[in-house]
């Protein structure tokens, strides 16, 4: 008997297109770019603010322009996807917790994340006077 194990090659660059689960993982990772992009927009805003009122008004105008709004909507959609997919995984990154002598269920951990999200969003909306 001769041994001649056969190794199946894995496509180095397209493997993540082979399965929906892998593609979703790549999207979860890639959507972080949108989060970074929005952070960059906010930092630019801060820089404009430090430069003076005219510059800051121009920045706000640009953000309110159709192009600015579309960009922000796209970023929002990606950021929401990013958030939801990470919330789903949150229980896996948490050490086992107990509450009133019972193990805290994964569902409760995810729910707590959503509650936190709603809470923080409300505070921000209150702060900017939108609610």
């Amino acid at each position: 008997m001769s041994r001649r194990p056969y190794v199946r090659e894995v496509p180095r660059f397209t493997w993540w297109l082979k399965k929906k689960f892998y593609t979703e993982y790549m999207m979860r990772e890639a959507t972080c770019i949108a989060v970074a992009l929005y952070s960059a927009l906010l930092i630019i805003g801060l820089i404009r603010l430090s430069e003076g009122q005219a510059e800051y008004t121009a920045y706000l105008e640009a953000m309110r322009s159709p192009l600015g709004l579309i960009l922000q909507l796209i970023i929002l959609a990606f950021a929401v996807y990013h958030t939801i997919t990470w919330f789903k995984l949150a229980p896996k990154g948490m050490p086992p917790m107990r509450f009133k002598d019972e193990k805290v269920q994964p569902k409760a951990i995810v729910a707590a994340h959503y509650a936190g999200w709603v809470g923080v969003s409300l505070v921000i909306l209150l702060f900017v006077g939108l609610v």
Partner: protein
Amino acid sequence: MREIQLEVLRYSPETDSEPRFETFQVPCQEDWVVLDAINHVKDHMDSSLTYRWSCHMAVCGSCGMMVNGEPVLSCKAFIRDYPDKIRVEPLANFPIEKDLVVVMDDFMEKLKASKPYIIPKEEKSIDDGEYLQTPLQLEAFKQYSMCINCMLCYAACPQYALAPEFVGPAALALTYRYNKDSRDGGKAERAHMFSKSEGVWECSFVGACSEVCPKHVDPAAAIQLGKVESAVDYFKSFLMPWSR
């Protein structure tokens, strides 16, 4: 009785230069699993078909294979849940030895090097009695002790496919299991496998391992928690060098 088309990836190291599919028409009974169909082929159609199995009840972990592209225990995959055409291949990410049998040396070596057994904190003689453990202490690791070494998680893991030096889900989950055991004192001895860059840090948290695990071990959770612990230990070793 339902007839299915069973496409099996065949590879004979003696005669084939590469694997090829062979199709069998298999009359299946309502309650059959994929393994039954494969056994039927071996018993009645082609006795040279090579594959592993033993318990036929999702306990031994030897019958893992790709069924329609997903790693499953073939003794737990009911034909009634599949279409009429079923494609079986050897577990992905492992070299093929013959037909549906893979070479598992890599996993076995990693498992052994991970020291998945209790290394007691303090040796006791039999006269000193048992090592006692409370239900709460058991709960800390019980889920991770359910692993049957079926390697489905390795077949699901794209990280292992791209970086074969990755210690991988099951070996890391089992290391975590022993590290978390109140009777154990071997964490430092296991760190060379667990905390190295090919250990927990190679994991990019795809999470596919936990999806396919037939025993709900959730290796992805063990690895993420392991990352946290490994990072804490690293900083501790700076702040409290004496604790090393």
